[in-house]
């Protein structure tokens, strides 16, 4: 595979706030790559640096082998789909899509052809004369995509393009975006804080926090083999426990020694152990590796989410069988359900469900990073 964008030692600060700290990343041709992380992790800033809207304090952006650090946005063969679309309110759908072609003075019949083709690609045929302000969120989204793609960029940057859509529409657009990416063969660099979105669409996921890349990998890699407690917690649900690696394939945690598939740690090395909630089997108390008491049950349709107190540590377990509060149950954990990670600075910060509440996931999704970036550009 051919490298199309190389990020080399990029750092960026806004005042005292270090947003990106020595980032290195290779992006390949024809790839759907997602920058995933919580608000303020630097993902949007990295995207804006690739687009040319921010200048890195240090480091280089290499585009098809060429350093494009000093190149302004209008000279980059890269187009952006903005978070709230940024459609031109004074132009209709056709003229919004034709915007870049008019700038290049493309002949009229050629513009007509290209715009029509793009509008049918995003299923907006017949909307040519409509005012963009009269469109629904999903339709505006499609116009924004068509407007960016008509330019035939080598790389399309998408800045949380689905965050303003409702759940149903978001799911549809996820599939559609993936199809468009496959059909056009353009490299998509997609920014999101939604891990489900990242897993379902991407070829490669880049997990970021605090201005650093935590892990780069395919969605299954990221989910099954998280590199540290942050990744394990941010992607899906995880029980993260303090453990000790006794020897290869043998780890001790929660007062029990388990068989596992991990090796290559030092003798008696302290580690973080990840057990996904869906990988735990509930068995009668006497047959379990671990024993505990159910403290809460939430019905989620497909399964129940139960919180189990095991020696003071609250586990989350997903099960299709009902277990009532105060029931004593046993936990059975297969070797392949256990993932062992090296200790990191995130150890102990995540993975305990003693203060768990579903609402916590929904709150705090206002994108602080974006607000900062905006206030920065207006200065």
């Amino acid at each position, binding site marked *: 595979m051919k490298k199309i964008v190389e990020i080399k030692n990029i750092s960026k600060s806004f005042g005292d706030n270090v947003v990106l700290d020595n980032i290195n990343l290779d992006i390949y041709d024809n790839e759907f790559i997602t920058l995933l992380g919580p608000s303020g992790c630097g993902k949007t800033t990295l995207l804006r640096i690739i*687009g*040319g*809207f921010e200048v890195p304090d240090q480091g280089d952006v290499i585009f098809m082998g060429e350093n494009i650090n000093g190149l*302004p*946005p*209008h000279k980059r063969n*890269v*187009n*952006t789909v*903005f*978070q*709230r679309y*940024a*459609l*031109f*309110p*004074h*132009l209709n759908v056709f*003229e919004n899509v034709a*915007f*870049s072609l*008019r*700038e*290049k003075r493309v002949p009229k019949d050629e513009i007509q052809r290209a715009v029509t083709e793009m509008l049918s690609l995003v299923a907006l045929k017949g909307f040519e004369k409509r005012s963009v302000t009269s469109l629904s969120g999903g339709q505006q989204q499609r116009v924004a995509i068509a*407007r*960016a793609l008509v*330019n035939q960029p080598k790389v399309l940057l998408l800045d949380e393009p689905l965050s303003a859509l409702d759940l149903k529409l978001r799911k549809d657009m996820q599939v559609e975006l993936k199809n468009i990416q496959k059909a056009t063969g353009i490299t998509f660099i997609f920014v999101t804080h939604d891990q489900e979105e990242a897993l379902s669409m991407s070829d490669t996921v880049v997990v970021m926090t605090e201005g650093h890349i935590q892990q780069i990998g395919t969605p299954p890699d990221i989910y099954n083999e998280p590199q540290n407690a942050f990744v394990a917690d941010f992607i899906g649900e995880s029980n993260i426990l303090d453990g000790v690696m006794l020897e290869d394939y043998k780890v001790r945690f929660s007062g029990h020694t388990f068989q596992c598939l991990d090796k290559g740690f030092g003798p008696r090395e302290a580690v973080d152990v990840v057990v996904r909630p869906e990988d735990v089997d509930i068995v009668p108390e006497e047959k379990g590796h671990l024993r505990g008491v159910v403290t809460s049950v939430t019905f989620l349709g497909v399964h129940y989410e139960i919180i189990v107190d095991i020696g003071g540590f609250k586990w989350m377990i997903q099960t299709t069988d009902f277990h009532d509060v105060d029931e004593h149950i046993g936990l059975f954990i297969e070797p392949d359900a256990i993932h062992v990670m090296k200790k990191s600075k995130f150890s102990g910060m995540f993975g305990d469900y003693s203060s768990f509440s579903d609402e916590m996931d929904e709150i705090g999704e206002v994108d602080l990073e974006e607000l900062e970036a*905006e206030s920065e*550009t*207006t*200065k």
Partner: protein
Amino acid sequence: MNDKTRRLIQRLTLTPYSVWAVLFIVVPLLFVAYYAFTDQNFRFTFDNISRFFTATSVVDNGETTREVHTYLVIFMRSLKLAVISTAVCLLMGYPLAYIMARASERTQSVLLTLIMIPMWMNFLIRTYAWMTILQDTGILNGFLSALHLGRIHIIGTESAVVIGMVYDYFPYMVLPIYSIMAKLDVKLLEAASDLGCPGLSVLRRVIWPLSIPGVLSGITMVLIPSISTFYISQKLGNGKFFLIGDAIEGQYTANNLHFAAAIAFILMVILLVCMALMQKLANRRLVAA
């Protein structure tokens, strides 16, 4: 509270303004129209109106004499100076409004204050100040001759009148454009640049069309007072440029209320028609584009 009482309260809160508007806007306008179409004895007549279009006077420039339509000439002169002033305000005000809208918040509030401070001073005092500056022996010429750059004669010329008008009405151009520019989404400018527009193209294809509403209200707010101004031309033009406002004032002080009202009425109608046309043109442009 039910809907009925809520509506009643809404209407009651509007009442003071409605009374005010009727007493001080509608009634005076009706009076102007009434006077314009009546004679000394308050009998209906078109004489005042037709006098505006037909009255002639003789211009003697020393060698030849010719007859001109007095008030039409005055009107065209007013229009010319007002259009020039408005254009100068726009040319200076538009870039300033843009720069202000993109400046830091601190700079914005400092600039806003600086622009508004002259508005806190009395209009007559501002005009007198410009007399002191522009006179043949004034501050400007003192400055120029101190630099050995010679003197310029500017007081009593059209330029002096334009300078006075621009100074007085400049804030009315800047502020509406600025308020539109400040609301402009930065992301739109980034999008234009992302789609291949260099800076000047972004201005022409995105900033300018989106700022037209501000430009229009700026033009309206400068053109109308400058077309009907009377004091500036008397003081800075040494009374050599008799403008339509001067004509109204002259007729009024000569106790010729009916003709004064007629001139005011005609001016109002012309301005209303112009504004309506402009608005319509702008709307069509916005929709068509």
